[in-house]
């Protein structure tokens, strides 16, 4: 693990990849997010933390277009939108993993990760029927890429196992692989380490850091393990009851009184 901020000062002042401005989201009368603004800079690891029900997952859902906020706008790669559409978000390079693993349970590890390449494949229906010529060449080319990810995540042995049969920790890993297969510019990780033991957490942290270092992928991460958040992230945004209460480096945030209150409660 690296100490926060070492050698990454460039990122601290880097270009903004994604900016969320004044976003509010409500379901009927229930307000999930209220007027939240923050930005994610190119290449950084940005953590979103907060107590349960703070609106973290909803925030990710807004970013990749699954929920449509009533107010506010999202600027991704300089292009401002009132609302994202999932397809647009994906094709522009936003990939994501899910809090409760959302793998394609009936498919093998390989097929799951290959499915992540769908957007990059374009050989038409005719060739797909024949599975020959261009379609086969395309398939092989992407298979090579996927095999690299499989090597990277050290999951060679479970290549052809249906993911439904894998233990939870490995499923999380396959899910990361599937997101990586999309070659995302922005990777959203929703509690990648929930329910893992210490060893699995260490592995997952290593993968996240390597993804960031090796591919230069920008990462936004929701996590409850404060140790992990402090070690991994460059900057942290803190939500509570759908509002932003703090934003800054891990050190700044952990010293912030309102964050301490939110986590430990205010004495009455």
């Amino acid at each position, binding site marked *: 693990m690296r100490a926060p901020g070492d050698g990454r000062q460039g990122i601290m002042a880097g270009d903004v990849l994604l900016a969320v401005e004044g976003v509010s989201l409500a*379901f*009927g009368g229930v307000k999930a997010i209220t007027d939240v603004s923050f930005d994610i800079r190119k290449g950084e690891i940005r953590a979103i933390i907060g107590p349960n029900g703070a609106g973290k*997952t909803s925030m990710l*859902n807004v970013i990749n277009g*699954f929920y449509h906020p009533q107010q506010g706008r999202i600027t991704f790669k300089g292009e401002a939108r009132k609302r994202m559409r999932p397809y647009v978000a994906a094709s522009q390079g936003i990939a994501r993993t899910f*809090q*409760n693993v*959302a793998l394609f349970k009936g498919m093998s590890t390989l097929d799951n990760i290959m499915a992540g390449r769908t957007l990059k494949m374009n050989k038409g229906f005719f060739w797909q029927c024949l599975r020959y010529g261009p379609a086969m060449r395309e398939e092989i080319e992407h298979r090579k890429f996927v095999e690299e990810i499989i090597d990277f995540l050290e999951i060679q042995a479970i290549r052809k196992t249906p993911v439904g049969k894998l233990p939870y920790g490995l499923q999380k890993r396959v899910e990361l692989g599937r997101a990586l297969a999309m070659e995302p510019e922005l990777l959203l990780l929703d509690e990648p380490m929930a329910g893992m033991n210490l060893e699995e957490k260490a592995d997952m942290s290593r993968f996240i850091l390597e993804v960031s270092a090796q591919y230069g992928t920008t990462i936004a991460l929701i996590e409850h393990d404060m140790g992990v958040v402090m070690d991994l992230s460059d900057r942290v945004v803190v939500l509570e009851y759908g509002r932003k209460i703090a934003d800054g480096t891990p050190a700044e945030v952990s010293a912030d009184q309102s964050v301490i209150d939110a986590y430990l409660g205010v004495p009455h």
Partner: protein
Amino acid sequence: MDILYKILIDPFVQMGAAPDLLVQTVWEGLVSGVLYALIALGFVLIFKASGVFNFAQGIMVVFAGLTLVGLHEMGLPAPIALLVTLGVMFFIAVAVERVVLRPLVNQPDIILFMATFGITYLLIGFGELIFGGNPKRMITEELYLPSGAIEWKAFGGFVQFQKIDVAAAVIAALMIAVLAFFFQKTRIGRALRAVADSHKAALSVGISLNQIWVIVWFTAGIVALVTGIMWGARSDVSFALQVIALKALPVLILGGFTSVPGAIVGGLIIGIGEKIGEFYWGPLVGGGIESWLAYFIALGFLLFRPQGLFGEKIIERI
């Protein structure tokens, strides 16, 4: 223009010109709606308590009616035949729970749905084997059900009510009231609602799922028997009912799969809608649109309100 007139205006002119016919059509629709609602009701009971999309509800109606009539034909007096039929429905409930539900617990919904296809075929096969495949006349008089018609002079004409239809509506209303009471006020009813909300939570407070399933399937069997009697009295008891029973599906879509009032309102809407459609718009395309109109009504409705009439708005979560 002519065609537009025929579609958009002429039917309403006809309605205005002969209000007695309109009332008669609505009444006919109401009656078939009650029957759809009854099938849908049996269906909702099972879906709520066991999460099973019970395709076999329609054939249960046929089977119950067939057993009743068949037993009577074999020489049993009507009241005894009725009791024995109830016994048969209870036996079916126990058998379904033992043979189908228990081994398949925790399987995905679609597997259980498919299993009810199996039940359907078993009931068809046994029904045909034991009682023969020919349509049978319902033993209306023997069960002391009224026959004949009442004429109501109104709207410059007259409207005819079959007494059996009135009886059907009254009995259906009574049954629904009893069921509502049963669900709201009794211990078993409370357990049932608990199971409907969450199987695991219900198990954890000591409710026996197996027992509840038998009760629910038996209740659905009783509802099926009543439906079978009413339906049989209007036409015949035959396996053709099974296809008509599929119309309970659009009813469920309108009403939502878990809502008893939804099933009733949905049934009435579909019943009235298709009768009016058939009577006033059917002739424009050669008639017979009753066979598919219900599905299109439901489909059109679904496109605007995917959660049904009484369902809550679905928020998708991940």
